[in-house]
């Protein structure tokens, strides 16, 4: 009788272990649900997050375009130079980099260049970025040896022309104005001048 109980007990324990092992090993620890929540209202912000839906505005978004005719603090307007060949030439002739050329700015420019430009333009600006080398995107011309599609050699591009291209984009390159602030654009321009020499 006791022996029988023992085997049953062991059997039950074994079954329990197997069951718990099976249950705990199920899935890859990801879930489609957030699980239980308590006092959710302490988590939700009273103010709006920038990418949150918002019924107060007609287009339903919290992030609104600044009203027409206003300039955000720290922004430099570039409206005088429209996205036309004339605007490009005018920017090239008139606009100069307002930032001082120093080591800090160049370092920051190099970092920004690496994140925002090098996937296509390549680490040295030869038009051989990682995406280009994988043949997933056509190569842009080299800063040092290429010709610009707007005429002239890439190595002769002036401050304003490079800034204009970052601002509006050109051919297959899109505008990078939403990713880079004016100061950051000028730092990138400064670093591109370095690459034109390479």
């Amino acid at each position, binding site marked *: 009788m006791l022996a029988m109980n023992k085997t049953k007990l062991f059997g039950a324990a074994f079954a329990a272990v197997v069951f718990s092992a099976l249950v705990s090993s199920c899935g890859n620890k990801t879930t489609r649900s*957030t699980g239980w929540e308590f006092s959710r209202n302490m988590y939700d912000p009273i103010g709006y997050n*920038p990418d949150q839906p918002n019924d107060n505005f007609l287009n339903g978004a919290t992030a609104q375009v600044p009203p027409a005719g206003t300039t955000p603090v720290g922004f430099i307007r570039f409206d005088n130079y429209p996205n036309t060949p004339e605007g490009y030439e005018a920017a090239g002739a008139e606009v100069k980099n307002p930032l001082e050329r120093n080591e800090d700015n160049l370092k920051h420019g190099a970092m920004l260049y690496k994140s925002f430009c090098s*996937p296509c333009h390549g680490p040295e600006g030869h038009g051989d970025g990682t995406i280009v080398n994988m043949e997933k995107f056509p190569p842009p011309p080299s800063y040092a040896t290429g010709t610009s599609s707007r*005429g002239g050699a890439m190595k002769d591009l002036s401050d304003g022309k490079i800034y204009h291209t970052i601002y509006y984009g050109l*051919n*297959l390159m*899109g505008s990078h104005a*939403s990713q880079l602030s004016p100061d950051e654009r000028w730092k990138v321009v400064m670093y591109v001048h370095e690459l034109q020499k390479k």
Partner: protein
Amino acid sequence: MRNISLLFRSVVKSLMLIMATGLTIGTASAQDVKEGESLFKQKCTSCHAINSDMVGPALKGVNDRYSEEWLLKWIKNSQALVASGDEQAVALFEGHNRVAMTPFPDLSDDQIRSILAYIDDAGQAPAASATAEGGAANNNDVSGFMLVGLGIVIVIALLVIFALNRVIRTLERIIVNKEIEIVDEEEEPKGPTLMDKVKVLSKNKRLVFFAVLMLVVFLGSAGWKTLWDVGVHQGYQPVQPIKFSHQLHAGINQIECQYCHSGAFKSKNASIPSANVCMNCHKYVTASDKYNGETSPEIQKIYDALDWDGQNYGPDQRPIQWIRIHNLPDFAYFNHSQHVSVAGLECQNCHGPIETMDEVYQFSPLTMKWCVNCHRETEVNHKDNAYYDKLVAAHDKLKEGDKITAASLGGLECGKCHY
């Protein structure tokens, strides 16, 4: 057997025929086409594609539309040709929003001819895609073979069921024959019922104690874990409106996180990229080679959100409503730029192996314990870090025995009082 060998022979024959014709056409211009291809990729692909309009028009069949002589002039300097009043040139210029084509005076006539040869060759590429379809059909044949195999298995299973049915019927007949005896046998082992057994066991105090203890431990630990996990979204992996793969973009394509989440450098919010950032690449990248020449349905969702028709953005634009995964409660302040720019942390420190995630899930628990543990262990790197300059200066002063004021610790910053 004979059928298969016949089939094989005909396939080999047709293959040889194709290769022979390919060789006769190919040998003469293979070199040119290759040179043309590399030139085309260097000079032309920024604006042109073979089969679709991009900045410039699709180039398929351009050799049939224009004479070689005219094309040579146009490619070397299109604006001069337009200025000279050439009818075709003016029509082309006006027809494409007066976008001037880059002049290529450095290309020789032979180089341009090889580019044209490549365009001609690549324009016939649908033939290649047709053979690819043939390959797909072969794949279908394989699955057809598997279907036949499955059918055979099903037939065998049916046969087994039939045979077993026969066995059951004979057994039933035997049972009917010996019914009385079986009934007797059933009545015989009528010992203690299940209820009786439970009653006996419930009198065993040790066993009952053990069972209750187990139950308490189980419920207690399950309850403890459940309560701990309330509001902790670790592992949360919602279905997003677009099947955007971080594995493809950040992993395989090695695009830096900040290219899209550019706010992480300089803002509290790492920022979800607006769709214009997608379009920096996806104006060109449509993954159509994977979808029989159609735009990938997932990329099409970006185009729909932007009302993009391939050339222009329309008025009917609406935001892509991504589902937020990482949701820090509003009573905890977190700033991305402080961690990314000042501390120099990698995104993966908190977000896990994001470059391997096809679908993103929350890697870290984002609990206070998790934050505090990291803050306890992480050493501050204050060298060459402007953020800590004031702090280091204040400590140096203390070491030298100078007195320091609240102002030298940033006490004059407006936000200390007017927040």
